[in-house]
Each structure stands twice: as C-alpha cells, then as structure tokens.
C-alpha cells in the first residue's frame, strides 16, 4: 500500500472539505446538537479516517458529507464542499446530479443495502443507466465493474438475488456500484463491521487496490482502530460531535496527543499484551447523552487531566506541526497520563475441571444431516481461560451450547466435570452441575429480561442455583453487586435503564451467582465500545483470579483472545484445527488456517504483515469437503493428499497440536519465510 505524504500533496482543491459543520437531530420539537463544529478536509487521492466510539457522530458526519441526513436531522451551521463546490444548500436536482457524478458511498450492512427483490445484476446495471448509458452498454459496464472488484464469475453473480450471496460478496457488489461513476470521493461507513476477519481483510485489500487504480479520495469511518491505521493516511479522532485530534495516522496512533485518544488506545490490548502482565486502562464515565450541553471541552467529564481551566474555557486548537493538531489545554501533560497498572493475577491451575471427548453435534434439517461439531476433544484446567476462535459458522457457539446442555450432543460424546459424567441436556443435570457451568452472552439486551429489575434477575439466579433462603440470597446479591461494581441504585433499575457496559456486568454477576466452576463467555465484549470492553475484560480477569473460575472465551477478536486466554483452540467447520498455549499459537508453527486468521487482523500497532488470502468462502457444514475440510481454501494444500485423507492430529510441542498433513518442521520453515 502506498502512503501519500500529506505534506507533498499538490495544492489542488480538496476532494472533501467540511467546515465547522453543526448538525442537530430534532427530537420532539427540540434540537439536539450531534455535530458541534466538525472541520476536516480530504485531499484528492487521500484516505482520511474518522474514529471514535459509538454515538460520537462519525457516521452522521459521513452521511452529511454526501448531504444525506436522517429525517429528523438538520444542518444548523457550517459548510460541506466537495471538489470545491458547496453542497450544503444544494436543491433536490443539484443534489441528485452531485450524487450521480461526484461521490459514492459504501455502507455498513451490505445485506440490507441491496434491494432483496431485485437481482444483483439489475441493481449494478442501474448504477450505470442512471449515468445515461444505454441498456446494453450498462450491462457491459456492470460486468466490467464486477470484474474490477475481483468477482471471479460476474455473469453468475449478476443473476443472483442478494440473499444468495455472502456478506463479503455483497460488499464487493456495493463497492462496484459505488465506483460506477468513477467518483472523486468515496465514503465508506464501517464497511467491514459484521464481516469475518478474513473477509474483512479481503475487502480492505480490495479498497486499497481500487484506491490506487482510481485515485479516488476516501473517507473511512470505522470503530476499529486497526482498520483505520492500515487504510488511512490521516485520521481524525471524534468525541461527542467534535474532532479532538487530527494528524498523520501513524503519528496519532503511536504518540497520541489528546487524553481521549490516549484513553482509547490504552483500552486496547496491544503489542501482544497479556492479562498476566498488566491490566487494561479504562476510560471512566460514559459518553455524554445525545444532544447534551457541552460548553467547554467535550471530554472534560472523563478526562484524567481535567482541571478548572478545562471546565471554564474552550480548549485551544494546538498545532503540532505537519498538519497535526489537538484540542487540549494540557498537551504537555498528555504523555504523563498513567500507564496501565501491572497485573497481580494468579495464574491458571493444573487440575482438570472439564474434559470433553469426541463431542459431536448433528442438526437435522429437512431430511439433511448437518454436522455442526465433529469429534471435538478439549480439556480445561481450573482458573484457566480457553480461547475459542474461528470464522462465523465454525461451530464455536454450538460447542458452547453443547457444553452447557442447551443442545444435547450426539451419542458417543462424553463430557466430564470434576471427574463425573455430565448429562447431555441441562434439564437432566443436577442443580450442582447447573451452577457449575454458566454463560455470559454476547448481547446483554437479549440476555437480560427487560421487564425484571436487576435485583430480581440476580436474586432469582442465586436462589435457584444455591437454594439459599431469602436473607442469605439478599446478602449474596449485595456481595455480587459489590464485586461487579454495581451500586444499590442500579439494583432497582431495569436493564433498559442501564448502559451496555453495566448490562454486561449484570449478566456476569448472574453467571457468577452460584460460584460456577466454568463460565462460557460468548463474545461478551463484541457489542461494547473499546473503553467499556477494557473494563469488562479487567473484571473478568479479576473474578477469575479470585474465584479460580475457568473460562471458555469465544471471540472473533484475536487481540482480545490473546490478552485474556491461556490456551487457544482454533475451530473450522466444527473441528478443532489447532490448540495450544497462547504463546505457542502466536509464535507458530501454525495450522495454515490459523496462519491465515492471524495475518488477517489489521493491527493498530502498524506492523505490516504479508496477508494470506483464503480462497473462496467457508463451505456449508451440510456438505463438508473431502479429506481435510480446509483443503479447498488452503494456501498450502498438497494435491492428492489433503483432498483425499483426513489429516492426523500432530503434537508439535507439549500441549500444542495441529491437525495437518504437513509436518510441523516443514510448516515452521514455510511460515518463517517473509
């Protein structure tokens, strides 16, 4: 990828210039400010990123850049210039022409961005006919455009309906439509959120290639700092409707100069950090509610450096040279914001808590058998975290549910907890077995009963799992609340009155109600912002260290897994492809699938790793490939071997096994090459 030096950019008209943009949502007749004077520009051919947590206004800015406002949105000040033309007050026809010719957009959810009742081809063709091309011409252009976004068989894709294509494929189609008019400006709003890391990497590669080919300027919105770093030349950090810091992406991420940027970056587990080394930093407090009054510094309520000056004066724009600035009264003190605290956690034990052998799960659907889990063997020690990673559909959640007895595994599967056999469904298990294994779900909104108070949720779990009387139950609830840092005020609220982080704490408290031996964490932080995620991860680590609880930690975020897990298992199509300690896994040698997963992660640390492309898409579990199930997508597959026979499980080193035909030494040699 090429990083254009912003200082050497020619002094031409900016592809996009946003000047002091103020935007409000009208809620019940009252204007609630959302953007509070946003200014930035994107030069021709440049990629500019906007980062920030949800609700900071980055998506609103992206849509406003193309003058697309929500129904209740109104621009209350400032200007938007695209290619030098002020589009702030364009009339309907002008706006249409502008969108047709000058700028395009790629959306967050490609599945809903395409009309479900119209064939994909027709929708792509439409992007060309609107430009005035004739039917046949547009058809040819559409094929061409789909080829350009690296769709191998565009004819076939054109004849499909959106629901027949995968998320990655749909996003390519959307990109092809966006590029139809050869726009000078391409706005991408969270284009890879919701896609698997491997697919995300491919889409980002594609955007990079196309950017070089077309020279379009890019405005990229993402909450994932790694994505922004790997894609953008310059970056703006947004908080509460304002850009608080801006500059060259590398510089901002390596040496942040605003307390918020510092907080955001420190919340992430970076540089291979592990829970045994240090706890994650967190940002105290919560995002101000939409439209609240923030007269001085927008970050003042959460800032560790805030003093009287910050509360009384609007912070200046401090120029730092090279087009970099920050809005802070205390730029010089930013570097002194405390580094994270060293960890005092106990390490995992050596006593085996859970042993699962030959666990399979076959679903039946319309007479077809769909093996979702195939012969999974795993063990879990006390106080240990086992990370479970893999793409969507790899069977991670099915495995979790089989452990918990929500799904009963197939005949011949064996689950032993503390040396005794577990019944296959939850209803058949004893109360002790029930309390021994609990779960924290991904989405706390769905996991907590919306019509119960927090107190009732916790009381019920305590009583049901421990059989305590009501006095002891109340004592236990108070104890749990204290552990999870929930105040008594929170106990009397309903989940809808709590923030996402607080809800997840309630869910964790509930899981710990009966002193469980094992807690399954199914993507517990993926619905949360990074600063909240850090607090939850710290909490989970502390609880584990105190209570010797074991975790099965499912996540698609390898950074998080690397931080929290002691061992990691990699799943593909219902099978464990590799299992080993966290160190082993990140050191290698790896299964080729693991290798691809690891290389797909865009790093916020800016390490450039060569990407491994996985061919094709994850096959249907109903129809698994012969031999090694991974061979059709494997970049190291050996023809005649991998497609013929199931690979053996090879123990590379103590506790590190790989399911692959290629000998470990050979893998090691192959993978050490650049």
């Amino acid at each position, binding site marked *: 990828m090429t990083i254009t030096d912003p200082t050497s950019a020619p002094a031409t008209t900016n592809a996009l210039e946003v000047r002091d943009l103020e935007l409000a949502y009208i809620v019940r007749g009252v204007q609630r400010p959302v953007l509070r004077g946003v200014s930035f520009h994107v030069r021709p051919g440049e990629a500019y990123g906007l980062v920030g947590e949800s609700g900071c206004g980055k998506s609103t800015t992206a849509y406003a850049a193309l003058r*697309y406002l929500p129904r209740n949105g109104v621009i209350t000040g400032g200007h938007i210039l695209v290619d030098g033309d002020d589009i702030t007050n364009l009339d309907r026809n002008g706006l*249409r022409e502008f969108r047709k010719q000058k700028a395009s957009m790629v*959306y967050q959810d490609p599945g809903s961005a*395409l009309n*479900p009742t119209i064939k994909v081809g027709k929708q792509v063709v439409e992007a060309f006919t609107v430009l005035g091309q004739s039917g046949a011409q547009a058809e040819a252009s559409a094929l061409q455009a789909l080829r350009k976004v690296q769709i191998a068989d565009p004819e076939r894709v054109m004849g499909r309906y959106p629901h027949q294509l995968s998320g990655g494929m749909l996003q390519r189609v959307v990109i092809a*439509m966006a590029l*139809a008019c050869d726009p000078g400006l391409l706005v991408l709003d969270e284009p890879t959120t919701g896609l698997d890391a491997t697919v995300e990497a491919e889409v980002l590669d594609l955007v990079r290639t196309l950017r070089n080919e077309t020279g379009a300027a890019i405005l990229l919105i993402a909450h994932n700092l790694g994505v922004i770093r790997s894609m953008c030349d310059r970056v703006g950090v947004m908080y509460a409707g304002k850009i608080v810091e801006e500059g060259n992406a590398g510089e901002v991420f390596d040496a942040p100069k605003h307390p918020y940027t510092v907080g955001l970056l420190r919340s992430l587990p970076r540089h291979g950090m592990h829970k045994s080394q240090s706890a994650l930093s967190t940002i105290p407090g919560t995002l101000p509610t939409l439209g609240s009054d923030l007269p001085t510094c927008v970050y003042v309520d959460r800032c560790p450096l805030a003093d009287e000056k910050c509360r009384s004066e609007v912070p200046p724009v401090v120029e730092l040279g090279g087009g970099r600035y920050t809005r802070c009264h205390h730029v010089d003190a930013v570097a002194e914001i405390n580094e994270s605290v060293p960890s005092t956690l106990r390490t995992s034990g050596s006593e085996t808590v859970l042993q699962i052998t030959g666990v399979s799960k076959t679903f039946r659907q319309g007479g077809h058998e769909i093996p979702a889990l195939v012969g999974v063997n795993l063990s879990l020690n006390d106080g240990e975290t086992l990370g479970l990673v893999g793409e969507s559909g790899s069977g991670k959640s099915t495995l979790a549910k089989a452990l918990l007895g929500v799904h009963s595994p197939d005949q011949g599967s064996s689950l032993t907890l503390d040396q005794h056999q577990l019944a296959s469904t939850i209803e058949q298990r004893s109360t002790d077995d029930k309390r021994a294994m609990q779960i924290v779900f991904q989405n706390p909104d769905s996991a907590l009963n919306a019509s119960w108070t927090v107190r009732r949720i916790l009381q019920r779990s305590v009583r049901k799992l421990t059989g305590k009387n009501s006095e002891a139950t109340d004592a236990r609830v108070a104890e749990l609340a204290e552990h999870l840092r929930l105040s008594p005020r929170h106990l009397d609220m309903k989940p809808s009155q709590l923030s996402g982080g607080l809800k997840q704490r309630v869910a964790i408290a509930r899981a710990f109600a009966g002193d469980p031996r094992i807690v399954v964490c199914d993507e517990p932080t993926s619905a949360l912002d990074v600063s909240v995620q850090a607090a939850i991860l710290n909490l989970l680590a502390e609880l584990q260290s105190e209570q010797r609880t074991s975790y099965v930690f499912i996540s698609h975020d390898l950074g998080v897994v690397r931080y929290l897990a002691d061992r990691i298992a990699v799943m593909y199509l219902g099978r464990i492809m590799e299992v080993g300690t966290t160190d082993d896994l990140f050191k290698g040698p790896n299964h080729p699938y693991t290798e691809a997963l690891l290389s797909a992660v865009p790093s916020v640390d800016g390490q450039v790793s060569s990407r491994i492309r996985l061919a094709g898409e994850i096959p249907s579990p109903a129809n698994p490939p012969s031999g090694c199930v991974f061979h059709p997508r494997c970049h190291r597959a050996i023809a005649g071997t991998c497609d013929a026979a199931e690979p053996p499980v090879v123990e590379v080193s103590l506790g590190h096994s790989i399911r692959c035909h290629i000998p470990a030494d050979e893998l090691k040699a192959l993978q050490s090459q650049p």
Partner: protein
Amino acid sequence: MTKYIVKRVLLSLVTLWLLVTIVFLMSWALPSDPARAILGPFADEKLVEDFRETFGLNDGFLEQYFRLLKGLVTFDFGLSYGTKKPVWDVLAPTLWRTAKLATLAMIITTPISIFAGLVAAKFRDRRLDRGIVLTGLATSSIPEFVTGTLLAVVFGVKLGWFKAVAIIPEGTPPLEQLNYLFLPAMALAIVYFGYIARMMRAGTIQAMDSDYTRTAAMKGLSSSQVMRKHVLRNALAPTITVMSVQIGYLVSGIVGVEVVFNYPGFSQALLIAVKQKDLPVLQVAVIISALVYMVATLTADLIIAWLNPRIRLEMGN
C-alpha cells in the same frame, strides 16, 4: 416454487377439512330437533318422522359427517328444510350476484386506497397524511350496514342521486345496473379503504426507510424512480396480504349491506334461512364463505412468494 405451492395447497386442504369438521360439530354441540322446531309442537308424529327421514336426520353421526364431506366434492349438500330444493340450487344463483357486488366494491376501492396509502407515506407526518390516516381509521371502524344506511339516507332518499333499493329489474342494461349497485358497493368500498390505505402506507414507509432505498437515492436516482423501482414492489406484499384477508371479511360485511339495500344476494337466502330455521343452507353458506377466504389468502400467499425471491427460490428446494 412448485414444491411450495403443493405444500401450501395441501395445508389448505387440511385446514378446510378441519373447518368443515368444526362447523359440523357445532350442530352436535348444540343438539336440537329441527323437525319439531320447524313443524311445531302440535305436528303429527308421523309428519315429524317423515321430515326426519327426508332430510336424513335419522342417520348416524358418521353417516351425516361423511355426507357433508362428500358434498364438498359433489356440491350435493342435501335438501333445504324450507324450500325442499337442493341447498346448492338455493344458494348458487344468489352467490353470483353477491360476487358481482363484491367485485365492484374491490374495483372501486383498490386503486383509490393504494394511491391514498402511497400519498400518505410520501407526505408522512404532514397534514395530508394525518387526514388520510384519520379518514381510514374512521371509515374502517364503522360497520358496513351503518355506512350503507347513511349512504342510503343521504344519496338515495334525500338527494335521490342513486337508487336506495338495489333490486335490479329484469333486463336492465349492465351500465344502468351501476345505478343500483353503486351505493351498496360504495358502502363496502369505504370500509375497506381504511384497511388497505393504512397497510399500503405502512409498507411504503417501511420500504422508504430501508437501506436499499437509501442506496438507490445515493446512486442519484430521482425520487420517482426510487419509488417506482425500489419501493413499490416491496411495499405491495403486506398490502396484498391485507387485501386477501379483507376479501374474506367482505363476505361478512356484505351481508349487512345487502340487507340494507334489499339486494338479492346470498344474504337474502340467509335471512330467509334464519327465519325458516333452515340449518343446511346456513351450514353450507358458512362453509362456502370460509372457502372464499381460504382461496383468497392462498392466492395472496402465492403472489407474495412469487414477489419474494427468497421464498420463490428456496422453498422449492
């Protein structure tokens, strides 16, 4: 798709069978002696016995049940108590007159309500939209016989623009028949306007708020192109469902309207049957109108499946 159709039709047949059974069981749940009821308490026992014999009332439960099921195929539902003619012959001529009225009502109401729904959605939350929504709410909540009565009072009796009595003299040319049919058809149309317009509005708004409509607008399509190519088709599906259900309810509502205007549709036959305690006619009328409802919803489901590629392509496999 074929597999979907077959499955859907088979399910409908099961429903039909259940429904007929339910209707049949009603007469056994409320045991009565029709012969006595019709002939009166002082009728000769021999006469009563003859009556029972003629109408098969002495047959056992199963025999009567299977006779009814068989009737569904052969249209032989036995004899009417009142006229002593086959039930089907009593009902058939009235049915098609009712169908004529219902069709006219649908022809009047469908385009107007769909258009009103679209307009309301387009001018969402403005005064025009509020007006349409409120009108729809009011008209659809008033029973058909009340609407019909008021129409008759105002346009029939007071103003005299249309005939308030819909008894069409023999040999009236089709166009002139409209003069008689207009008010009853309007009474029905007014009630269905509300349902269809509101659903069309909701469907259109949903489609207009969707991400794919945003995509289309961002491509630079004009708002009328967006409406025509992207919104309309997706907005139509819920409306079709509502219309099919309304066709089913039309059967109920039409009874009141026909009575108001003395229209010789099947409600006339029904009211006579009620007076004469002619249970076979009533029973078959219930079954036939349920059948109409089922055919309407089945057709709607198939149209929707055809409009939605997800069902069309996947249900068949």
